[in-house]
């Protein structure tokens, strides 16, 4: 629809509503109000415009205004829709939620096989939630797992958060989202097709073998057809029965809800090195150690007379320089000859040398241009 056409169009058409250009609650159309934004609440994913959300939920939680819904919605949870298809939106939300609880990394496992097994169990949980299978039970188990593994979960979260700081990680996340969107779209097609054929088969079987009203059997059938009838499914059921679940083994994840095999024992990482304000440089003297005080008349005035000291002149700095000058001479020429002798550990010698140097007025011998 061209912009001109939109403007000339009189009443909000059915078409506009289908396009998602009209709020199903207040019926105002986007073309009359180009700033209009639609929001959804992950409680039921019914779409409505921002001003409807403001109007209905600002006073506190209220029922969804969409006919037949009645779920209680909170304003804070409304947000813009990321995906065109609301089913995809919901699945991504669920995947995100599950992933935030089951956030172990490959590194946490001893073998790749262990990691893959873990991923499969997690996928089962996700699948159940997405397709409304054993939702209550699955949620209860997930919550129990979350409670029991709170520390590990937050640790992995902060790992992930740190990773996300880097630009690269953010790019990867974008890629991942695109990938998810595509995968979701594909899965959806598949699901629909499967749904239709399986449902028919299932219903027919049931109708053939049991009594009961066709409607309820059909409803049940619709649920069942969504279940994954794979080996994974069986495994999960077995676990639920408790045989693998019993208790955490030594390197397992102790949880009443799930058992992941082959988890590595966590070794605390070495603490991150603190920042070195010296940038790796040190000023330890190799050849001498300076003393706090040298008893030398020549220096005493400079030390005590405020005319010399009040400006911050520090004879220790002078001593350091004199020692340094003196020992750089020694260092260059004597060091190699006096091998094995540790000049640094003989401060008394340093003192004597410094005194000697000072006494001879070392500065007079040096053509210091300053």
């Amino acid at each position, binding site marked *: 629809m061209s912009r001109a056409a939109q403007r000339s169009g009189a009443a909000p058409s059915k078409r506009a509503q289908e396009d998602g250009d009209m709020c199903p609650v207040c019926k105002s159309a986007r073309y009359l109000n180009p700033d209009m934004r639609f929001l959804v609440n992950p409680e039921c994913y019914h779409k409505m415009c921002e001003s409807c959300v403001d109007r209905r939920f600002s006073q506190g939680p209220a029922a969804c205004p969409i006919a037949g819904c009645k779920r209680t919605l909170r304003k804070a949870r409304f947000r813009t829709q990321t995906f065109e298809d609301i089913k995809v939106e919901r699945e991504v939300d669920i995947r995100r939620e599950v992933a935030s609880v089951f956030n172990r990394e490959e590194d946490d496992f001893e073998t790749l096989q262990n990691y893959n097994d873990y991923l499969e169990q997690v996928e089962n949980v996700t699948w159940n939630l997405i397709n409304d299978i054993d939702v209550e039970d699955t949620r209860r188990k997930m919550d129990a797992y979350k409670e029991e593994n709170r520390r590990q979960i937050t640790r992995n979260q902060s790992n992930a958060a740190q990773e996300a700081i880097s630009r690269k990680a953010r790019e990867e996340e974008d890629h991942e989202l695109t990938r998810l969107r595509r995968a979701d779209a594909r899965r959806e097609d598949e699901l629909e097709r499967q749904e239709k054929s399986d449902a028919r088969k299932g219903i027919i079987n049931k109708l053939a073998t049991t009594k009961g009203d066709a409607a309820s059997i059909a409803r049940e059938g619709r649920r069942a057809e969504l279940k994954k009838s794979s080996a994974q499914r069986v495994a999960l059921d077995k676990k639920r029965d408790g045989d693998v679940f019993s208790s955490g083994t030594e390197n397992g994840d102790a949880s009443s809800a799930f058992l992941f095999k082959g988890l590595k024992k966590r070794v605390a990482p070495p603490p991150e090195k*603190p*920042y070195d*304000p*010296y*940038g*790796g*440089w*040190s*000023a330890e*003297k*190799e*050849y*001498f150690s300076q003393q706090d005080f040298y008893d030398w008349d*020549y*220096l005493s*005035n*400079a030390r005590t007379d*405020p*005319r*010399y*000291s*009040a*400006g*911050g*002149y*520090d*004879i220790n*700095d*002078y001593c*350091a*320089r004199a020692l*340094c*000058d003196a*020992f*750089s*001479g020694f*260092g*260059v020429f004597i*060091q190699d000859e006096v091998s094995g002798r540790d000049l640094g550990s003989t401060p008394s010698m340093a003192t004597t040398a410094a005194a000697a140097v000072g006494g001879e007025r070392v*500065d*007079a011998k*040096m*053509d*210091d*241009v*300053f």
Partner: protein
Amino acid sequence: MALSPIDSPKPVPAAAKALPAKAKALTILNASTSSPSNASTPSSEGPQDLSEQLNEQVRRNYVTGSRLGEGTYAIVYSGHLRHDPTSLVAIKKLKVNKDYLDGLAPDAFREVRALQELSHPNIIKLYAVFSTRDQNLNIVLEHLPRGDIEGLMQNKSVSYGPADVKAWANMLAKAVWFCHENSILHRDIKGNNLLIAADGEVKLADFGLARTFSDPYRPMTYNVITRFYRPPELLYGARYYGGAVDVWSMGCVIAELVLRHFFLVSNTDIEQIDAITDVFGSCTEDVWPGVSRLDHYIPPAKDNIKRPKPMIYWKQHFGMLGDDGIEYLKSMFVLDPRKRATARQVLDHPYWTNNPKPTPKELLPQAAGGVEKMAEDLKRRGGEIEEGDGRADKVARKLNFADLKR
């Protein structure tokens, strides 16, 4: 000449970061093969006498290019090695100084001597020295193309935060500490002498006023350090002073990075004392024993003893640094230089290891850069005429040189 201190600070992993002190002690600046491109320590071959350095050979190694900037006593050009146009250097050409027509200008000599001693990532590297036929001295320096700290501080289109300030402050503090460990006073620390390398590293430059720590009873000139950055002892005419003067200036630079304008501002030296005491309180014998014995000391009027600004002032203006940051900043502004933090104490402060961590240098904000920035820089400096005192020492340098010569 004096030997380099063999015990100068060195990298802990005995890396080839710096010239080994021993080699340095034996090496005089230029080797004819000097080259900044193929090594970070380009000039370390055959020893030569200082007089021999000023030679044709070295001069012919370099090609002078466009103008990078101008200081008080020098014009700085970009340049490169003749055989390698990608090896950028900065060539600091000293302005003809009529007073030293048949000798070396003292500023240049100071600069060369000081830089020869100092090899540290936060101190500008000296590659070579040569003279031209008109007897002008040329100092070949590391090329630092990203402007200076003052430009950054004033460029409101660059936004930065506490972690960035911490990173810049740390690079400055390391440079000052290294100078002092090597017994060298810089005496002109300010934002526009802190140049920024292509990789974001801040480097202390312009050693035109540097000197070694003096011997006892040997007076120094108090007319050093650009006024806004000058500590109270120099304003009071102290002739015997130490590293504390540089620490004060360092505090000023860090403060202005936070404020984004100059910190202690005035038009005359007397007013500068007022600017300081307005913030830090009057200089009295109580807070600074012996201060009244300094030559230019003026006691405050009895009824006008100023009190230091309360903590709320610091929190208001320097809250960005956090409480630990405020404490370390204030430690650089203690009026009595003997009680002021030393560069080493500054680096030992917990501020550096507390959060936030300093920003890694590659990630530091930078000005738009390039030629535009350069032009803007030049304009800025042109407009900022500090009447007669901007480089207060233009005259002082010459006058006081006699004092300093042995």
